[in-house]
């Protein structure tokens, strides 16, 4: 018994030592950039893929000469396991390690905790202020009630996305009956509420024939839900489902031979394209995004091809990741120092021409990036496919940034 205890103790010490070494400070003349997202657990697939995006972008920036005439950016990854509490721990670690800019993408619950924590930290510690650039969370509250000077959102919020979807639905005269099905948590509930509001606003003639909420990531068999959708006579479905919830829903629809159009927010996330192909829903599943692989634009096409080669055919997803890094670099170079307040003041109100040549604006009032969106359907017969299915995204509508400028209730207190 004693032998096994001391063996365990030795083992723990060795493991602790091995884990501690990467955290030791590396080169001094770098600007640390932190990435906090789930790198383990069930959400790790999204976190890891996002990390690849940033690693690729930072490497490109550094190989092009870095910032401020030669300083390299150093990307440090932190695993928050998808949990808000753990995120605060990791954020503190990031700040302690000297990071000046924090990127985060997965989870509005995480984002709300993080933005609150960083706002308080920056207020109490004027010498170690950090900026928070989010590239994923869609909760409108982040740029409304919970806005603050230190947070910048590069992804369109869920209200804007639904607005774009319904705008497209407005131009579909055959659409008569809509079914809403969502996951029963804050995001799903906000999708449902906003969809109702926007449908009433833009197409009051459409009947909402069903409004379903199901527990998050608990349902294995969606066949009963498909039966309900069919029984309601719906010809279209709006859903904010993602991950297995969306894949299984669409598979069940394909199995049952349900003839309906699917309007999704997250149709492009890992696994869903495969499910759409398996369900045989050619051109019937739509998503709303700021970019997809078949959007014309040489720079992103080249980047996507290069990224796929490097990461074994896993395609680029987040245009906003590139936009955020590009705009950050421009802001740092403009003010000549990696100081949170100065860079922040340069970032807000910045107009930029993003990688597909579209004009975007980081709005000053709420730090929300205003960008155009595409509604795309997953179909056969497109040049670039997803997940080796042979099918890919095809733009069916372009919604310009000018019609996607939400109002905001943000009242921001600015530093000094």
């Amino acid at each position: 018994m004693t032998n096994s205890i001391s063996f365990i103790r030795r083992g723990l010490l060795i493991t602790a030592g091995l884990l501690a070494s990467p955290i030791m400070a590396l080169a001094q003349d770098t600007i640390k950039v932190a990435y906090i997202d789930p790198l383990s657990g069930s959400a790790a697939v999204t976190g890891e893929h996002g990390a690849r995006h940033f690693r690729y972008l930072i490497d490109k920036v550094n190989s092009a000469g870095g910032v401020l005439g030669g300083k390299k950016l150093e990307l440090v990854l932190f695993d928050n396991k998808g949990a808000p509490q753990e995120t605060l721990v990791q954020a503190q670690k990031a700040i302690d390690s000297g990071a000046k800019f924090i990127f985060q993408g997965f989870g509005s619950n995480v984002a709300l905790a993080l933005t609150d924590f960083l706002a308080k930290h920056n207020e109490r510690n004027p010498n170690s202020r950090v900026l928070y650039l989010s590239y994923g969370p869609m909760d409108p509250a982040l740029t409304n009630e919970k806005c603050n000077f230190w947070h910048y959102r590069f992804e369109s919020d869920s209200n804007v996305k639904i607005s774009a979807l319904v705008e497209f639905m407005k131009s579909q005269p055959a659409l008569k009956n809509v079914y809403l099905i969502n996951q029963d948590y804050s995001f799903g509930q906000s999708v449902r509420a906003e969809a109702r509001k926007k449908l009433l606003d833009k197409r009051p003639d459409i009947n909402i024939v069903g409004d379903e909420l199901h527990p998050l990531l608990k349902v294995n068999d969606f066949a009963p839900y498909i039966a309900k959708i069919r029984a309601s006579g719906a010809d279209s479905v709006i859903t904010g489902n993602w991950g297995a919830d969306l894949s299984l829903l669409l598979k069940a629809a394909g199995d049952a031979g349900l003839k309906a159009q699917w309007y999704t927010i997250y149709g492009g996330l890992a696994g869903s394209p495969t499910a759409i192909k398996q369900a045989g829903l050619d051109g019937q599943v739509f998503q709303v995004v700021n970019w997809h692989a078949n959007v014309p634009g040489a720079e992103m096409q080249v980047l996507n091809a290069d990224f796929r080669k490097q990461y074994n055919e896993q395609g680029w997803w987040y245009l906003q990741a590139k936009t955020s890094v590009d705009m950050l670099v421009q802001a740092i170079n403009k003010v000549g120092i990696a100081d949170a307040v100065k860079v922040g003041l340069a970032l807000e109100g910045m107009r930029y021409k993003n990688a597909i040549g579209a004009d975007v604006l980081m709005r000053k009032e709420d730090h929300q990036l205003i960008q155009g969106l595409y509604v795309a359907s997953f179909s056969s017969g497109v040049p670039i496919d997803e997940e080796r299915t042979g099918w890919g995204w095809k733009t069916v509508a372009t919604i310009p940034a000018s019609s996607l400028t939400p109002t905001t209730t943000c009242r921001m207190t600015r530093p000094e």
Partner: protein
Amino acid sequence: MSELIVFSTLNGLQYGLLLFLLASGLTLIFSMMGVLNFAHASLYMLGAYLGYQISRWLGFWVGLLLAPLIVGVMGALIERFGLRHVHRHGHVAELLFTFGLAYLIEEMVVMIWGRIPVSYQIPNMLDFPAFTLWSTSYPAYRVFMLLVSMAIFLGLFFALTRSRIGLIVQASLTQPKMVSMLGHNVPLVFMAVFGVGSALAGLAGAIAGPALVTQPNMAAHLGPLLFVVVVLGGLGSLTGALMSSLLIGLVQTFAIAGDFSLSDIARGAGLSMNVPEVLSELWNATLAQLAPVLPYLLLVLMLIFRPAGLMGSRES
């Protein structure tokens, strides 16, 4: 209405039988060795991934045959070289061992196949609608799943009750020491049961993989439900496991069609109730929203009123 009933019954049965396929192995292992095998759902996931990989090289049917065999052998080896040594340290040690094993298997799967769901395809031979009622088609693959699960149940049932090996296994369930005194190799029986139980989990994975999403967290998705099935059905009883899995499958499927909440019932009965704010969400939740929670509710009720389970024969 009748469309809903027919399809809900079919879906409920098929879902329940899939649960049974998974739970049958677990209930055998649980009742035989008192070991709560946390890694059972992970073996199911391994079966799905192995089925996927082998089907990519040698076709779906070869994968369906080989994947359970491989998982079964792995299970037997786990018992022989792992559990048997941990057994003498008590139940808690066994639990921790299988718990750690579950993590290990999941990380192994991630290392080999990555985190992104893999495309485990239904074979073309089975990819057609088996029949179409009232304009809803029922896929042939689900019928196949139904038939295989049924066949496994019958095979297990007859093997356990009619064959000599089955009788020895059944005896070892309750009187291992006596059976050992009678000259049978009880450790070998244990290993075989663990192996067969694991093979059943692997088979469930290989079959369910194309229908569900084959991804690294599929074990966590189905895992808790398994224990509900086993405890609800009663330890040591295969028929109990079948009944409880069918019950759970049907209840959950039919509940999803229930678009009414407690407040609707109260309103229908003409009562207007003033529910305090704290309970309002529960009051207004529809049966459909609660459907995935119902199995756990059944578990709690069963443990209160009949802890031995539906057909349990052991008191632990």
